[in-house]
């Protein structure tokens, strides 16, 4: 694997910039790809895949031009190869129905209502990505610094290689 990638899907450039700014602490070791539509996000994911990178988390707004954020997350959850990707919805306008669909059909991992708390965003992204790295059996040591180090080390202690 080359890089671990977060895909941020948000059509409002200002909001997108704010999210990316809040995730600045991950910049050292994790790449953030930005997309403004679902199609754009799928393209970014395909590109990452072709380059040998791994998308670990998708942070999507719900209301987007064209397909919605929930549509994207549902389609990811339906794909066995992508199902391990952690999914976070960050939205101001998802209705009751959409929210239920996101939980039941997209296996949503976290829901943020706008406006979000930057500290909470960082902490959720950190925990979700840590879970991804463990489940995807990536090189745990590589992420000790940028993700939840103690949790990764606890996990590493259980799967050691020869001294």
């Amino acid at each position: 694997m080359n890089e671990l990638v977060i895909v941020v899907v948000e059509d409002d450039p200002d909001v997108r910039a704010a999210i990316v700014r809040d995730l600045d602490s991950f910049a050292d070791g994790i790449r953030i790809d930005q997309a403004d539509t679902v199609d754009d996000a799928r393209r970014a994911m395909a590109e990452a895949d072709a380059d040998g990178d791994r998308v670990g988390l998708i942070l999507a707004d719900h209301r987007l031009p064209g397909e919605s954020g929930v549509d994207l997350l549902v389609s990811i959850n339906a794909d066995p190869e992508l199902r391990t990707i952690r999914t976070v919805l960050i939205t101001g306008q998802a209705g009751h129905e959409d929210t239920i669909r996101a939980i039941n059909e997209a296996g949503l991992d976290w829901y943020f209502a706008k406006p979000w708390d930057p500290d909470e965003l960082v902490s959720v992204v950190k925990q979700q990505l840590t879970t991804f790295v463990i489940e995807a059996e990536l090189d745990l040591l590589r992420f000790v610094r940028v993700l939840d180090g103690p949790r990764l080390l606890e996990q590493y202690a259980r799967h050691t290689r020869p001294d």
Partner: protein
Amino acid sequence: MPATRSPSTDRVTTPWWRDRVKLGLGSAILWFASVMAIGSVGDLSTPASRMLAIFGAAVALWVSEAIPLSATSIFVILAQILMISDEAVLSLPDGFEAPTYESIYATLASPILMLFLGGFVLADAAAKFGLDRNLAGVMLRPFGTRPRAVLAGLMSITALLSMFVSNTATTAAMMAVVLPVAAGLERTDRFRVALILAVPVAANIGGLGTPVGSPPNAIALGRLDDEGLQVNFITWMAFAVPVALVLLVVAWWLLVRRYPASITSMSLNLGGTFERSRSAIILYVAFALTVIGWMTEPVHGVRSSIVGFAPVVVLLATKVFTVDDLRRLNWHILWLVGGGIALGNGVSSSGLDVWLVSRFAWGSMPTLLLMGAMAGLALLLSTVISNSATANLLAPVGISLALSDAVDLDPLLAGLLIAMACSLAMALPVSTPPNAVAYASGEIETKDMASIGLVVGGLGLAIVVFVMPPIWEAVGLL
């Protein structure tokens, strides 16, 4: 808007000679084919030449890690069965006493591996019930809250745990506790470096302490065992624990001197309440009895490998250690050690040892120089490749050399030197997995690790080569 991305890494195609896998596989195959093609020459018999082919290929594969370390081990076993055993597909000269193929397979279940298996099961079960963490918490309490005392406590406990649990698992578990504390210190407080370096250094040193502390110990013991030289658990500890203690004190002193704390009080959040379920209590009893059984071998005479097998039976039968836990055991490490023992057997049964020893007038070399060279080579090699692989390669040759009449060196001493030197290599992040774990924290630099690693390694080497042998002899250990 197209998806925008931060700059991605440049991908450069590596030329084949820089490609570890191709280079390792290439040289292994080249060596194997050439030596097989040349065959028996002069006093190098046909079986010995085949073993030389296997040995060289194993060197290339273990050094390059072109294939997994444990794959090289079972390659060594298969190649010996096919080439020098009584079931060999290649014909062997008359008069050569071929080892049975069963005996070659049997290295995978040799007593020392059974001892290791017992150690693994106990350690995994202890981790499962938090026994290691809770014991550490209890032991840390008397050290108080002064930073240098806490550091001493941290190092003693880490070393003690890693005498029975894998060095890497100990480091990772302790580091999970230390990281948040280190992160909570002021950015300018150098003591964070001391805290983080203390863990791998203490774990590496602790690994010296018992036969189950680290694979190189088992590899050396397995090879000695095959030559009829049995070293029991407590005897090994008598050799190694004093060395470990001296090195721990030196390492602690270096760390507190170089990275003084600016805070005056601190605490590590370790351990909680001991579990009191039926399973946990069975585990505590099994653990205690096994450790006592290991230490008292001279009294009861039951070998440590047999003592260590008992808790495997008890813990599995009582489901304290489940079949799922059994499946998750580090079997590959047992195989890795098994391959080293098989390589040693092959070198000796094929007669390659005699040929190798006769290549050089060892007798003209002072024994002390020979000891220094042996331990130095082990230290150097295991600084860059796996400690276990180094022991796998050097223990057969070093112990065979000591067994021959060519030199005046106790085989037991040769085994000890090689095993200990392998564990003393800790100067670089790649030297051992515990170092890699500490380095991954991002809180220390290679030069921090190198400066303490070189001192501990160099001093350790000097102690085991020059200081200890006369003492061991004086107290009747050798």
